[in-house]
């Protein structure tokens, strides 16, 4: 197992205000993910899985606790440096695909490469799309693709920069079961091939068998066993 990157969240606390009430979504959550490791995080709806993913990805500052990548405190970095870190080391996959509707599949996959100023972005994006089985659909826009195809475009976009860590937030939540299996197989093999670490957040228990490690988010804490 590659230990080139270790993402670590320590005692993360995050609360939201809802009217007059304060809801503590994360209450001392601690988690570590190594490069090449696939971690599946289960938890019921509203348990704070997505919040934890956002905090770990440097998108949402916790109230307390820390997130570090190879020992570097993510939230001590400036916005520009934190953005650069996300750009270079992280990939994201969402339940609702989040593709840019005005761009073709190929262009959507090229976006991260453009932000990195990579040469031959088109060629690289085409290769990755081919790898996820969409070589014949690369010039179609998202609206012309099925849900499963859109999610595979999103997977290609997440992996095209060869990130060290992939964050996947309910990637099959909007798919039927056959598409979901196909997408998950695609995601897992792509992540394994690139030797990236992966945090897969889901409430679908069937994906646990794909993981190196299964964790549970319960009462704002990360547990290794379900209650």
């Amino acid at each position, binding site marked *: 197992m590659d230990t080139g990157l270790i993402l670590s969240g320590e005692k993360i606390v995050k609360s939201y205000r809802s009217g007059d009430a304060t809801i503590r979504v994360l209450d001392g959550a601690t988690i570590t993910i190594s490069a090449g490791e696939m971690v599946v995080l289960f938890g019921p709806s509203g348990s704070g899985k*997505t*919040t934890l993913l*956002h905090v770990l*990805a440097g*998108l*949402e500052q916790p109230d307390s606790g820390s997130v570090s990548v190879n020992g570097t405190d993510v939230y001590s970095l400036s*916005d*520009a440096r*934190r*953005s*650069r*870190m*996300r*750009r*270079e080391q*992280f990939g*994201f996959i*969402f*339940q*609702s695909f*989040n593709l*840019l509707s*005005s*761009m073709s599949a190929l*262009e959507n996959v*090229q*976006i*991260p490469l*453009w*932000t990195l*100023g990579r040469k031959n*972005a088109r060629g690289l994006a085409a290769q990755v799309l081919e790898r996820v089985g969409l070589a014949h659909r690369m010039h179609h826009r998202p609206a012309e693709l099925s849900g499963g195809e859109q999610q595979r475009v999103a997977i290609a*976009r997440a992996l095209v920069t060869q990130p060290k860590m992939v964050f996947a*937030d*309910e990637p099959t*939540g909007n798919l039927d079961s056959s598409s979901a299996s196909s997408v998950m197989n695609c995601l897992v093999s792509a992540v394994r091939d690139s030797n990236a670490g992966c945090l897969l957040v889901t409430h679908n228990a069937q994906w646990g068998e794909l993981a190196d490690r299964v964790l549970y988010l319960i009462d704002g804490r990360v547990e290794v066993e379900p209650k």
Partner: protein
Amino acid sequence: MFRLALVTARRNLGKYLIPILVLAAAVVISSLGLSGAALLWRYSQYPIYQVFGGELIILHSSTPLRSQRGGIFTDQFFTVFPSEEVIKTVAETLPAAQATKTLFTAGIVPSWGNRVTVWPLMGRLDTTGRWLYKPRVLQGSNILTGESAEAWVWGPSTDDGKSMFGDPGTKLELRAAQFKQGNQWDVTSGQEYLYTLKGTYGMPYANLALWAPLETVQAHCGAPGLVSWIGVACANPLQVDGDRDKLGVELSARFPELKVVTAEELAEMLVADLSKLRETARYYLPLLVLVSCLSIVATTMAISRSRRRELALLRVIGLSNNEVRLLFIAECCLIGLLGGVLGVAIASGVSLLLFKACILTHEPFAVSFLVSLVTGAVFSCTAIRDVTVTESMRNP
């Protein structure tokens, strides 16, 4: 980043169609206004009193203007008159004793096809760059002679763009025409001056100068014996003051198509027109700014809302706030550029149709671009501030 900016801007262009069109319209309006003002302003720089000495009677028909190669030209079909007849009338109306030293500033009659344009020019550029044209100059007392003198020529150009007087460097023998006793305009025996042609200039420029034999010009233009502008000057303005109206009445009676205007009247007309246009044009630029601002602000507000998810995604993928802001600004610049270019193109066409002139001022384009830039900068801040990345990216 540049590629990303280019693609997102291109893909979102359709959404910006309305502000682009509004911006173009604003540029058209202001371009036409400012160009019109600029046109008249340039024309007003034409030293009308200097050229006509302030004591000339000018006979002319209307002269719509158009710009060409940096100058203002006219290619109107002019009514032409037999010069001998006009000269005779002038001689009879202004007795020779009174006009002994009056010089006949016969216009140049450029012609291509059957178009005839006549210019009541004359004068020359002296060595200090000063425009010399006064009756006393035309008498020859102040005219420099010799090889060293240079002439800028009001060059009625031919269709191939060349001056009828030749290319720069051509030696010109230029001669003052003298009004003589016996109803004769002597354009052959006056003193000759040798000039080196330095270049060709448009009408409103003070440093154009030519003094050429009338017959040469008329022959060249295929209009022998014809003129349509005539100026009559006198060394002493007081000499013609009393007879000026008389001459005008006489000429009008004999040549009904001829419009008789004094230099002062012409100047007053121009100044009045110019004042009106300049007054109006003052409002164009602020109007442009206002309309452009409103249009871009309204659109960017609407679009930034509809694109919150897109902006959030770009943030997630790894663009910093400043980089997303730059994307926004780049898009707004593109709007400004497209609106400006479209506006300038339309304004040029309309200007040519309406005014027979196309003087493009840079202000409307510059202002539209600047407005887009500033609006983009301001609204990108708002757009970024309103984007909550995690909220936007949460699963539905």
